[in-house]
């Protein structure tokens, strides 16, 4: 970003510094920032991008005004590192399913990590890994969470825009179904009998999967309430029952529907565990 251009177009007198950190993740959410394309120049003007190793080798030290955190905590080292990230940041937001919910790698929470290590690595004793993958909010205070695998770049931009304007960021928490109907999609569950997680999944993706005729697999996490704060957990029990009784999924298939990218978030976790029990009881 050249100085002259920045000065001539600067709108806010203070350019907050931005830092982007990576933990256990695939980098897809960081790429969503770079995929902002049309808005990237404006973003670079509005914010002082101080630390973003994925994008630039120029890495300045903190403290930072805004920190974005991608990825979950899966190693003892990262459990320590996230504390220092928090100390350096005034306002911290998680980006994506890994950082917000533990991600797909949280499937290890139901498995035996020591056994995985022995199977994969010839010298497992060198691998330092926790037995669980946990969201950032289990380790530090998080100011805002962005859901999705990957995040929706318009949502990211919206939150940053709100921050710059001094407005408390707020995103809708309702079901994917509402977005589907606004877009004029035909419901894949009702018209094709496909077990879709849309009714219990948070909006934000733009109903991408149902728009392509396939089922939502819940990558934006549970709609509305989670474990604390306002809102109620989505009625996963009723949807799961419909998958089983109406769409004839066997219990282990119902379990797998809920145990995916956001499988360790409470409403989805408890639902999959209920069906695990159901499967054992058969």
């Amino acid at each position, binding site marked *: 970003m050249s100085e002259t251009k920045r000065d001539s*177009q600067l*709108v*806010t007198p203070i350019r907050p510094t931005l830092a982007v950190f990576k933990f256990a993740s695939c980098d897809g959410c960081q790429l969503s920032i770079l995929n902002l394309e049309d*808005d990237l120049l*404006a*973003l670079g*003007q*509005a914010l002082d991008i101080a630390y973003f190793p994925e994008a630039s080798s120029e890495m300045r030290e903190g403290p930072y005004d805004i920190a974005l955190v991608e990825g979950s905590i899966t190693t003892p080292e990262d459990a320590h590192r996230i504390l220092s990230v928090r100390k350096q940041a005034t306002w911290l937001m998680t980006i994506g399913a890994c950082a917000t919910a533990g991600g797909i790698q949280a499937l290890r929470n139901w498995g035996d990590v020591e056994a995985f290590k022995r199977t994969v690595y010839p010298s497992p004793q060198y691998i330092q890994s926790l037995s669980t993958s946990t969201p950032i909010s289990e380790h530090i205070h998080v100011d805002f969470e962005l859901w999705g695998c990957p995040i929706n770049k318009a949502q990211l*931009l*919206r939150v*940053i*825009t*709100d921050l*710059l*304007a001094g407005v408390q960021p707020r995103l*809708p*928490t*309702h*079901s994917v*179904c*509402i977005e589907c*109907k*606004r*877009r*004029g*999609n*035909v*419901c*894949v*569950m*009702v*018209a*094709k*009998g496909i077990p*879709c997680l*849309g*009714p*219990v999944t948070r909006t934000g993706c733009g109903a991408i999967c149902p728009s392509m*005729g396939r089922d939502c697999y819940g990558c934006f996490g549970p*709609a*509305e*309430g989670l474990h604390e704060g*306002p*809102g*109620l957990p*989505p*009625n996963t*029990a*009723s*949807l799961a*029952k*419909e998958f089983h009784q*109406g769409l004839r999924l066997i219990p282990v298939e119902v379990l797998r529907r809920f145990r995916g990218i956001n499988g360790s978030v409470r409403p989805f976790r408890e639902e999959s565990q209920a069906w695990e029990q159901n499967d054992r009881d058969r």
Partner: protein
Amino acid sequence: MATQSNNHIDVVPKVLLQQLIDVLSAKGYRTVGPVVRDGAVLWDTIRQIADLPIGWRDEQAPGRYRIEQTDSTRIFGVVHGPQSVKPLAFAPREPLLMIERSQGRISIQPTMPKSEKVAVLGVRACDLAGLAIQDHIFLKDAYRDPYYRTRRDGLFLIAVNCTRALATCFCASMDTGPRAGANFDLALTELDEEMLVEAGSEAGREVVRALTCAPASTTQTSEAERQIEACADSQTRQLDRSRLPQALYDAHEHPRWDDVAARCLACGNCTMVCPTCFCHSVEVAPDLTQTGSEQSRLWDSCFTQEHGYIHGKNIRPTIKDRYRMWLTHKLASWIDQFGTSGCVGCGRCITWCPVGIDLTEELPALLKSSTQIKEESIQS
């Protein structure tokens, strides 16, 4: 059910129906009709009769919609899809205003929709009834919505009287169908070889005058009448409104609300497909540079968390609160508010509910007294 009208009825051989689209096109209308897509029918632009779902049939049940091709030659064999005419007047996403800041000044520009003449071919009686309710909400009294007005004014409505009822239909018990009542420009009744045409407006009569048609014979009109009557008689669902609205107000603490709340997903599908639901929210989308902000109106639903939020408090925190609010408004307080029921008997909320909640089953259960419930449980 609306009784037989005294309007003049003409007949057009079905093979000549293309003329209708051509006449409308010559008058500057884009014709929209039901088109098969993704396992249902959706409104889309059509250029020829062959674009319509000829020979297709829909079967609907709670939480289930299926469509299949048959060897029938019926043009309007599909009763309806998830969309009523609602999205054509009350757009799911309507840009309202563009606010711009330039050199210290703020300008506000309304972003009106483009006015367009759209002929909608294949509107059902229930949807006309739904549209009449939406007209009342958006256009009557002090607050008239110019965005809705612009879209609504361009509509030329071609109704189709129903001669086949779905398992989910109950318009006969709501007095909204299966015959198109008022509010249409043309109403068609499909027979095996011919289409009966009735004009309901001056614009409709003008179109009929341009068609090659003849007055319908008594045999033809009574055959149409018979089929419409049979359609009404074949409806298996009904909604008994005789004790409404009061009985539903009295049922505010009924245990049945807990049962339905255990099934309800609060996903909002019922409200999205409902031809009368009109809730909306306004989304403000500022740009990053803080020089512009677009305000849009979006379809909203009383089943969302945000909808029940007032200053500092959510007044409908549970699914039970939300379902009760929706059904009580739809079937009871709507009557006090607008003078009609908020339900037109189209059955879409039954079909498109992913878990198949059926309001025609919920209402009678909610109106049962505790003594009735006790007696029934003793008997069983």
